[in-house]
């Protein structure tokens, strides 16, 4: 959806639209096309006027894509040769686009830049943008998952502080469950989201893929331990075996104590503030993820900005990326969307410093790990969650589930193994 309110009349567009579509894009004056997803796409338009004023002759055309269709859209655009100049892409998608040789390498530009510096970024997040030794994206905003919890219910159950280890978390959940009884639960881990299980898996040392990213490593003791912990939460009735769609309005449910722990991301900071009734605002809090033996690692998520290789306007595209990476614009962007800034010094903005709920994210971001950088990873993670959901609903054993995940992962990675054997692909 083009967010900019049209300056031309509808009739003018009727003519210009098809004509512009038939021409080959190399326009008069520089028109940068920028694709952004979801809420970011809606909001980023507001930031463009300052950029355009600072860069006369350059206009930015923002197109918004819904997240659920974005991946398919991008691949279709790649196949059809109609990718934009600059694009926001989830950082877990980056290996795929590098494998497609669709994205431009940015090392030289970063080296020469006074705005974008690796030292300004969170280590784990920066690493997600480095694929086979090359830098292909610049972090735009960051995302990780951690605990959102009802501290009032936790306190009533006898826990004054949030848990920092798995064992503590389990006891806290059990105490809450005993307190709320039947008809309610201690935690919500939607069965159609792979992030909670993936976070637990990353907290172990064993890598998730082995043999250079050619085979699954889900039968490792580390992953099985994470899977076992996940299964135990459901087996003990601490979380409902439900998907997102089953819950209805999760904010209402959280407010009425249907669950007290929720593993989710930064967008819910704003949503919780907006949708929970005022008296409940003091009752919820965030905390970093508990790990097996102490505070645990988290997912290095978020979105990066990339320049597509076939763009004829890479210099202007880079300038847009630099603009969006300045501390000031990062802070403004956060204020507009609630997406956490990727620049560490943007976190010094007073509004962020004083946000007690965001503090847990600041801490967690120092302990995030990238996911395996195989292009097939997203599919593997999806399969992993499908099997985990089956494990919960059909009471499979952890060993059965781990074997099945490995089997599916190996099948998905077959082509990759072939490529690696021929020396074509690059190890993940």
């Amino acid at each position: 959806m083009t967010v900019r309110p049209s300056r031309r009349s509808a009739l003018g567009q009727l003519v210009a639209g098809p004509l512009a579509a038939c021409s080959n894009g190399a326009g008069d004056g520089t028109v940068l096309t920028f694709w952004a997803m979801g809420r970011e796409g809606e909001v980023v338009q507001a930031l463009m006027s300052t950029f355009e004023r600072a860069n006369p002759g350059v206009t930015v055309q923002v197109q918004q894509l819904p997240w659920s269709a974005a991946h398919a859209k991008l691949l279709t655009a790649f196949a059809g040769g109609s990718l934009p100049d600059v694009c926001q892409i989830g950082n877990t998608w980056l290996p795929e686009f590098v494998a497609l040789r669709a994205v431009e390498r940015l090392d030289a530009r970063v080296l020469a830049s006074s705005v974008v510096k690796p030292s300004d970024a969170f280590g784990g997040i920066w690493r997600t943008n480095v694929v086979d030794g090359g830098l292909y994206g610049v972090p735009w905003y960051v995302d990780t998952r951690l605990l959102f919890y009802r501290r009032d219910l936790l306190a009533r159950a006898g826990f004054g502080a949030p848990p920092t280890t798995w064992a503590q978390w389990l006891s806290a959940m059990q105490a809450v469950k005993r307190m709320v009884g039947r008809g309610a639960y201690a935690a919500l881990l939607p069965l159609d989201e792979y992030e909670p299980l993936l976070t637990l898996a990353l907290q172990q040392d064993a890598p998730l893929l082995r043999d250079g990213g050619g085979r699954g490593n889900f039968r490792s003791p580390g992953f099985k331990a994470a899977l076992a912990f996940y299964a135990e939460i459901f087996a003990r009735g601490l979380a409902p075996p439900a998907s997102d769609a089953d819950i209805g309005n999760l904010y209402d449910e959280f407010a009425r104590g249907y669950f007290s722990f929720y593993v989710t991301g930064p967008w819910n900071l704003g949503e919780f503030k907006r949708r929970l009734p005022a008296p409940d605002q003091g009752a919820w809090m965030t905390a970093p993820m508990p790990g097996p033996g102490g505070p645990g690692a988290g997912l290095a998520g978020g979105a990066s900005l990339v320049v597509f290789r076939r763009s004829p306007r890479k210099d202007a595209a880079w300038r847009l990326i630099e603009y969006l990476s300045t501390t000031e614009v990062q802070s403004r962007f956060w204020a507009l969307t609630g997406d956490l800034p990727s620049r560490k010094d943007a976190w010094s903005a007073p509004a962020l410093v004083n946000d007690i709920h965001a503090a847990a994210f600041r801490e967690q971001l120092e302990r995030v790990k990238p996911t395996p950088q195989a292009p097939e990873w997203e599919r593997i993670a999806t399969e992993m969650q499908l099997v985990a959901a089956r494990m919960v609903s059909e009471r499979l054993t952890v060993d059965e589930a781990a074997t099945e995940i490995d089997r599916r992962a190996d099948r998905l990675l077959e082509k990759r193994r072939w490529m690696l054997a021929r020396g074509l692909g690059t190890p993940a």
Partner: protein
Amino acid sequence: MKRLPASLVVNALLALAAAVALLPLLWMLSVSFMRPGEADSFPPPFLPRAPSLAAYKELFAHQGVGRDFANSLFLASAATALSLLFNVTAGYAFAKLRFAGRDRVFQILLGALVIPGQVAMIPLFLMLKTVGLVNNFGGVLIPAAAGVFGIFLVRQYALSIPDELLEAARVDGASEFRIFRSIVLPALRPILVTLATFTFLATWNDFMWPLIVLSDDRLYTLPVALASLSREHVQDAELMMAGAVVTVLPVLLLFIALQRYYIRGLLAGSVKG
């Protein structure tokens, strides 16, 4: 005396069926005039408390629906013109002109109807990409310029043109093109309206192919834009219903105006007599 209850039952059932058929559409219209958030209440309201154009304003001012409407209109009209251009001559030829292999080719065409169109979509996309017809209207229009159904429609109708008429004109020395222009076309006029109606409606409503071919949102047609909107704005019932009204109303009105032709086309070749 005994006839009355039966008549009442029949008409009551018809009214009930019509209500079921129309209820979602009427609700769509009603909600489109509600204020944002009004529809999300319990019990669900059926009529707006105070009708407002807020949803429509949002659609046209901020979501670019005016442009999507123009795109849909352009594509449907262009497709109709192309369809008339390509299908009518072919349909007439299969009915009335004798040429080598005519019946065999026609049977092959009929066989193509069993193949689901989606089989061809992916290679077609790759093919169009190599000639630069992806992400523009050409990619949507050109593959649809001719179709087996349209040819079939015209052929069935053209069969009823009396052979003697054509023979007489040939004997008089008229060329085939002359005959086509002066005798056949006027005779085919009703089916031309049917074909045009069918093509316009089908193109307007087409969803999957434009979804695949058009990536630039400035080229979106209404169904594609609506689907995209529905993924993002799933909570805004009023906005979505306004979008649905803009998409559905034009074709509904067109159908009501031309239903005689549309229904005739539907029956072509389905039922004898």
